[in-house]
């Protein structure tokens, strides 16, 4: 997994790419979320457009990020969820937990509306 971090106002966008399948990825993403929380950046949009492969462990990584941010009065929303990821979220009913968007402006704007 690779990532890039961008900012749009008070919203932080994490562009993920490659494989999200556990192992080292879990540590990298957890550390990134903690680093952002320490900087006061708690409104996160994770852009999954570049993710080619994901499994349930990868989804678990996103959930850990979500719960960490929620405990710190933040939030994590998903952008550009592929059909495969959507199927995993749907089957596990995690689609009811994650807010998902197809449009970046809508995703970042949802924080100001919320």
């Amino acid at each position, binding site marked *: 997994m690779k990532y890039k971090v961008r900012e749009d106002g008070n919203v932080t966008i994490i562009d993920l790419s490659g*494989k999200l399948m556990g192992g080292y990825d879990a540590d990298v993403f957890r550390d990134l979320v903690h680093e952002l929380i320490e900087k006061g950046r708690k409104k996160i949009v994770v852009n999954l457009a570049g993710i080619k492969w994901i*499994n349930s462990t990868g989804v678990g990584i996103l959930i*850990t990020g979500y719960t960490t941010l929620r405990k710190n009065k933040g939030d994590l929303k998903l952008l550009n969820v592929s059909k495969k990821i959507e*199927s995993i979220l749907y089957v*596990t009913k995690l689609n009811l*937990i994650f807010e998902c968007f197809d449009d970046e402006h809508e995703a970042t704007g949802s924080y100001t509306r919320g």
Partner: protein
Amino acid sequence: MAEETFVLEFPSSYKWLNMIDLMCTEITAGMDFGRNALNEISISVIEACTNALEHGNKCCPDRSVMVVFRRLEDRIVIEVTDCGEGFDFADYLQHIPDPSDIHKKRGRGIFIMKAMMDTLKYEKVEKGGMKVILKKMTDRGGEEGDE
């Protein structure tokens, strides 16, 4: 179509999972599966291999995972075998965790495979290890529930 069998053995590392996915895509290409079904097969194979290398082989690179694809006229059958100690699948099914529980980091793989495939079976292998058998009927293959 006569049965065609494809066998692949790989060390316990996440880096090989994309190769398994590509192989799965090639093998199922041309079969009577819709796009959603193809995604479900791909996701399930990745889940089975992830469980094998994480829970079965404890990510030990000296232990391998064997994947067998059997392509038939009306179905695809995939067997994934690890070198672990195995577990009681019937007992697990009695206590299957809620996949929507956000406090659980793991434990969704079996639930996902069960939901996406027509048949999901686990068997202990005599010489050691656990084999998961996944089956999905093609659109022409009719309905077939869990065995």
